[in-house]
């Protein structure tokens, strides 16, 4: 497939392909971070993760419509406000769900699978009733669209760069919150030994609620960011859920580093194979590889060393 191309042309294509892999990596990390907290740290199999993302996307849609109608001058900057609101909306809904449903199921982790799956169906139907069955178009500020020409022949999509920057920022914030703050210490204590954590005076119920809210809030931000690359409709959340679980499980459910490493492996494998093979074959090979590795290492790539 490379006959008739100069070395320079091939060089630029490979450079762009490298960026494509990095962008896919960022997208994977962004969608998996929220779930890594909820599933990895709390052990709740949250099938409604995609719907929390889409809630964020709808918040972005509302913002874009409101701002373009009432304050067109602010339009170039609305996206940041939208992401913050998406975090708040999904986070609050997450806390509500934790209070109303999840907290009764901590001792029955497999039941959370069914309960949250039901929740995802309910949310989908609510989206459909409120926003209509059709997909909505989120209008983005012009500066987010288009590409930067690095050289004459290398072009990098701006929204891809934006997702990358956002992913790095959120990862850093989560790292600080979970591993460098007193609150994060509390969260980790509760996850490792709930009874003991309660005994030393940590309000475990409150920690649970906020952790779940944080995970959902991050899903909301991810959903908001994905309006740049994907669709916004009642069932769009379903497009992300499989890849999200794949990344988290493959990385080793309890390890945030594992999530990042697994997102990197899967995204690079997939984007390289997509380039050289056809799209469907690439997906099949990626999934097969993941299954094979999980058979050898059922605990995933990285494991926390905990005394059992």
């Amino acid at each position: 497939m490379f006959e008739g191309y100069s070395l320079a042309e091939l060089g630029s294509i490979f450079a762009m392909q490298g960026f494509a892999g990095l962008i896919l990596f960022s997208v994977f990390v962004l969608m998996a971070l929220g779930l890594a907290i909820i599933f990895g740290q709390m052990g709740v199999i949250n099938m409604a993760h995609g719907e929390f993302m889409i809630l964020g996307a709808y918040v972005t849609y509302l913002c874009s419509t409101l701002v373009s109608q009432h304050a067109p001058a602010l339009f170039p900057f609305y996206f940041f406000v939208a992401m913050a609101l998406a975090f708040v909306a999904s986070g609050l809904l997450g806390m509500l769900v934790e209070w109303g449903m999840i907290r009764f199921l901590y001792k029955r982790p497999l039941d959370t699978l069914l309960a949250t799956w039901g929740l995802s169906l309910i949310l989908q139907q609510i989206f459909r009733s409120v926003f209509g069955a059709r997909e909505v178009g989120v209008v983005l500020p012009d500066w987010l669209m288009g590409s930067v020409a690095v050289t004459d022949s290398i072009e990098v999509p701006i929204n891809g760069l934006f997702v990358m920057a956002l992913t790095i920022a959120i990862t850093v914030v989560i790292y600080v919150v979970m591993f460098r703050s007193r609150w994060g210490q509390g969260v980790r204590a509760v996850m490792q030994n709930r009874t003991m954590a309660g005994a030393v005076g940590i309000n475990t119920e409150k920690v649970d609620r906020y952790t779940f809210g944080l995970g959902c809030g991050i899903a909301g931000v991810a959903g908001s960011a994905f309006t740049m690359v994907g669709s916004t409709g009642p069932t769009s959340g379903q497009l992300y859920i499989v890849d999200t679980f794949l990344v988290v499980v493959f990385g080793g459910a309890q390890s945030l580093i594992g999530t990042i490493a697994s997102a990197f492996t899967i995204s690079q494998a997939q984007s390289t194979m997509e380039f050289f093979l056809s799209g469907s074959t690439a997906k099949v090979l990626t999934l097969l590889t993941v299954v094979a590795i999980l058979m050898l290492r059922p605990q995933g790539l990285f494991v926390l060393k905990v005394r059992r």
Partner: protein
Amino acid sequence: MSSDKTNGGLRSPFRRKLLLGMAALPAVGLLTRNAAAQALATDAVNTTKLAVTDSTVKVGILHSTTGTMAISETGSVQAEKLAIAQINEMGGVLGRKIEVIQEDGASDWPTFAEKARKLLVEDKVAAVFGCWTSASRKAVLPVFEQYNGMLYYPTFYEGLEQSKNVIYTGQEATQQILAGLDWVSKEKGAKSFFLIGSDYIWPRTSNKIARKHIEKNGQKVVGEEYFPLGHTQFNSVINKIKLTKPDVIYASVVGGSNVAFYKQLKAAGINLEKQTLMTISVTEDEMLGIGGENIAGAYACMKYFQSLKNPNNEKFVAAFKKMWGGESVIGDVTQAGYLGPWLWKLTAEKAQSFDVDKIAAASDGIEFTGAPEGYVRIHANHHLWSKTRVGRARMDGQFDMVYETADLIEPDPFPKGYQ
């Protein structure tokens, strides 16, 4: 699979029923009451125990109003209801008002089959307007054939099917593909094509036909790619497109993937004003989700655009917006959905009967001059003669028609040399 054979099998029972009906006529004439003075007696128009009374006739609407496909099927439901409301205003069919029983296929193919059975067996509807995906049509087809129902199917589809019990009001693949490819070759001097689609039967069959046609014309296919339904990351394939530099990107990506594909094309710096892209899967409905700014400049090959300028269409668009709100848009399939009830009405009037066998036999040659897309006619193979049109996407989510075939294109569900 020839239609002659089906008709041959019908002939004798058909004639017998016709005679029966004629025999009943004089007796019925005595019974007619004032309101039904011109209408035919129920016994005469309904010899197979369908849900027909002296003043009403029941039909079914079977689409997904919940689940993933609700996005696409909502428009068809709206169009069918509009057509039925208009027909009722004009006095109904054979003097009987149409009553609708609506069932939800819930985007689930076994559910479609179950609901189809319910409509035919319990409700005994005279006709069903419904289905959208090929998978749902394939699921209900045995039910319609077993219980001898009549289905009006609105979606453009891959062809390779023909049934006495189905009228296909959308285009089969060759009607949608060939004229469009010829136009883009002539107009843009295209020599090389990159085919990209979602991975299921319709894009694969369509691209198979497209590839044969392209190669027959001495042009080249430089890439053919399929992605799983719901795929959202197209950066790698976009790089591949950049590498192969095709004259035309030929796209049949559907659903949520569609939005991702066009957004990422634009973000990757591919300007559709310069790079020719032709799609057979984007109508005004999909444009809502994609956003006009992300797809403006692309060409779509359809048989109908909301912006068509003819008196029929202007009336249709106005009536549609009056019934379903000024914001609503009308895509190709929505218009094809609108044709269903009208074609059924015209056929029933020609056959002077609601009996499915008579409707099936009378369908050949039915003409509908009031179609928003312009004049259409039913072919003996139960598909429609219709024009192929190419539209160019605008920023505001509408299309400007840039080309239409001079004549109606003959439907050819089993194209020779393309399989």
